[in-house]
Every structure is written in C-alpha cells, then in structure tokens.
C-alpha cells in the first residue's frame, strides 16, 4: 500500500533551509569555539582558529542571505493566531505525548512560530553585531564601547539562536515523520492531519 503523501516544502524552500542550516551549524561550531575554550576544538571544522575567524563572518553573510529569503517565503504563515495560543495551553500534554483535544493549527504550531521569530530577531542582531566585530575590516571604524556591546550582543543572540535550534532539531527528531518534510519535501497525509490539521484542510481543499 503506497502511503498517501502531501507536499510540505518546495525545492527552493528546502534548498534555502539547508543552506541556512549548514551555515548555521558551521557558524555555531566556530562561534562556540570562540565562546568557550571547551568548544575551541570545533574550530578544526573550518581548518583551525584563524580560518574559523576568517570564514565565520563570510558564512554568516551566506546564512543571513539564505535565511532572510527563506524567511520571506514563510513570513505570512508565521503570524501567531488565537488557535496557536490555545494550542500553547496544551503544551505540557503535547510534550508528554498525551494531547488529544487540540485546536486546529495551520502549517506551523506556535513553537515553530516562536522559533521563526526568535531566529528572525537573533539573526538580525547577529548580523548587525557581527559586522561591528568583523576584523580586520569593519571593527576599526567603530568605537570600542560599541564593539564591546556588539560582542556581548553577538554572544547572547548566538546563544539564544543555538538554544532555539537545539530545540528545533530535537523536535524534528522527536516528532517522527517531520524530517522527511525538509529532506524529500513531502509528509504523510496522516502526519499532516495529525500535526497540522488546519494546514491539511487547506491544502486538501486546494488539491481538489
């Protein structure tokens, strides 16, 4: 019996996601390497400390570009609705795999939307603060106080982003059947009906 599948992400969306994701991993690794000596070994991913320092900002630019293209594609679907808030009240049950009576949510649940907005904000902050910290090109232009502030902001924003991404990755892993949405672009209809009934309804209508 062939499984009934629905398309969740177009090729362009998937490509953007993975460019962003791969960039993010490299950035997180090299960023963490500079954040705490415990992670310094992760520099080797980019060829050592100096190469990490050189490449990190360029990869950052790649990620920012791909992320914001991706983000504009998803923008309208990430507005938080009343149903989302209702859904949020059941978060405890959801986490315990016990939820039953849930409101109909659309393509994204509120957790995903939070992730979206967190990343929009943190990546914007990382961009701005990152430019200020970018040695040896831009830093000399800025007063040191600003560079210090930027370093702090960059660290905090990076921390929040990484934390969010850890939750994101785990959620993808935890919610079985999600990963294929971003790899193959399709999810099972059952998955869609179960996790995003509102969305499923919409696309079902459209299909017909």
């Amino acid at each position, binding site marked *: 019996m062939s499984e009934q599948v629905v398309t969740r992400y177009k090729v362009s969306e998937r490509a953007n996601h993975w460019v962003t994701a791969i960039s993010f991993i490299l950035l997180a690794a090299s960023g963490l390497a500079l954040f705490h*000596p*415990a*992670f*310094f*070994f992760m*520099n*080797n991913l980019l060829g*050592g*400390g100096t190469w990490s320092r050189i490449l990190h900002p360029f990869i950052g630019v790649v990620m920012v570009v791909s992320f914001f293209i991706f983000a504009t594609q998803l923008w309208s679907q990430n507005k938080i609705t009343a149903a989302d808030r209702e859904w949020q009240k059941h978060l405890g049950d959801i986490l315990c795999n016990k939820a039953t009576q849930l409101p109909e949510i659309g393509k994204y649940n509120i957790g995903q939307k939070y992730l979206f907005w967190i990343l929009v904000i943190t990546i914007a902050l990382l961009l701005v603060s990152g430019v200020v910290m970018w040695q040896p090109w831009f830093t000399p232009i800025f007063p040191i106080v600003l560079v210090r502030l930027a370093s702090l902001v960059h660290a905090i924003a990076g921390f929040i982003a990484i934390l969010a991404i850890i939750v994101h990755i785990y959620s993808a*892993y935890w919610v079985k059947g999600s*990963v294929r949405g971003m*790899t193959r672009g399709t999810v099972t209809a059952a998955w869609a009906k179960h996790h995003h009934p509102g969305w499923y309804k919409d696309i079902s209508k459209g299909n017909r």
Partner: protein
Amino acid sequence: MQVTRRQFFKICAAGVSGSSLAVLGFSPTDALAEVRTFKLARTTETRNTCPYCSVGCGILIYSLGDKSKNAPAEIIHIEGDPDHPVNRGTLCPKGAGLLDFVQSPSRLKHPEYRAPGAKEWKRISWDEAFTRIAKLMKDDRDKNFIAKNDKGDTVNRWVSTGMLAASASSNETGYLTHKIARSLGMLAFDNQARV
C-alpha cells in the same frame, strides 16, 4: 534515514564525553608559550661612539657572525654602552635608530660623476675619480696660486678652491685633512662649527 534509539544514545554519549573533556581543558590545539629567541646570543659586539652630537655616547654594535673569513659581518643591532660614564647605556631617538643610518637606502655605494650640463649620474671607478679631481685641482692651483700679494709680501695662498671639512669625521681624518689643505695653501677652509 532513521536513527534508532540505540544509535542516538551513542551519539549523545560521544558528544557529552567530548565536551566534558574539552571543559577540562583537553583541547587538541594546546600549545605551550615561549618568548622570542634572544637575537644577540652569538653576535659579535663592537664598541663605538655615536656619530651624531657631541655628547659622545658610547654604543655597542652587534653584528652577525664571528668575523671569520667566510662570513662578512652584518650589523643587526645597536644599543647604548652601559659602561660609558656619560650615557650609561642610554641613547636618544637618533642614537637608538643608528642601525637605520648604517643600513639607510641613501648610503652611497659607488663613486659617481656628473658631467657639465648632464641630467644623470654616471658610475666611475675610484681611479678615474681621483685622477680627474687631482687634475682639476692642480690646474686651478697652478693658475690661481698667489705666491706674493700686491705689496710683494710672501703669502703663498690658494683661495680659488675651497673645502668644507666634516665635523663628524674622526680626529685622524680631520688632522690629515688639515695637513693636506694647508700644504696646498688653502684658506677657504671651514667646518660645521658655525652651522
């Protein structure tokens, strides 16, 4: 691709142990620090005096090599002579930069000649230079030497060629210069005492 529960455990365990080792400082790029190698260790030290002003500071010149036949000395560093009673090892900004005087790109390396009306220098040999200068000097001296003045007094002077002597040259050079200048009858003879 599905990761089994068992595989997931393994990945997490590796990650945890890796990061905890790192937290303990076990970082793969750990390198010990060392200071820069002391650059004078086996250089040759020569005592000299600063050629600039008349404080006459003692200096130590450090050159590469041990002056053995096959290793021409190259001066790599100059600093003050701590034994010298006046400067006691100190040097002013000029003295401290003496190395760059010795090694200046403006140092002249070959005798050069500029012909009348020429726009460029021409490299010549020492012998050519000495021969031509001696000829010019003798011609002028023979022509303009004043043995007696209008009154008939013996004056033996040559004032149509002059010389300015170097006040940074050694006494030995100065003495020799004076001897030669006066033997030629020169009076138009001065040094930097005034400027």
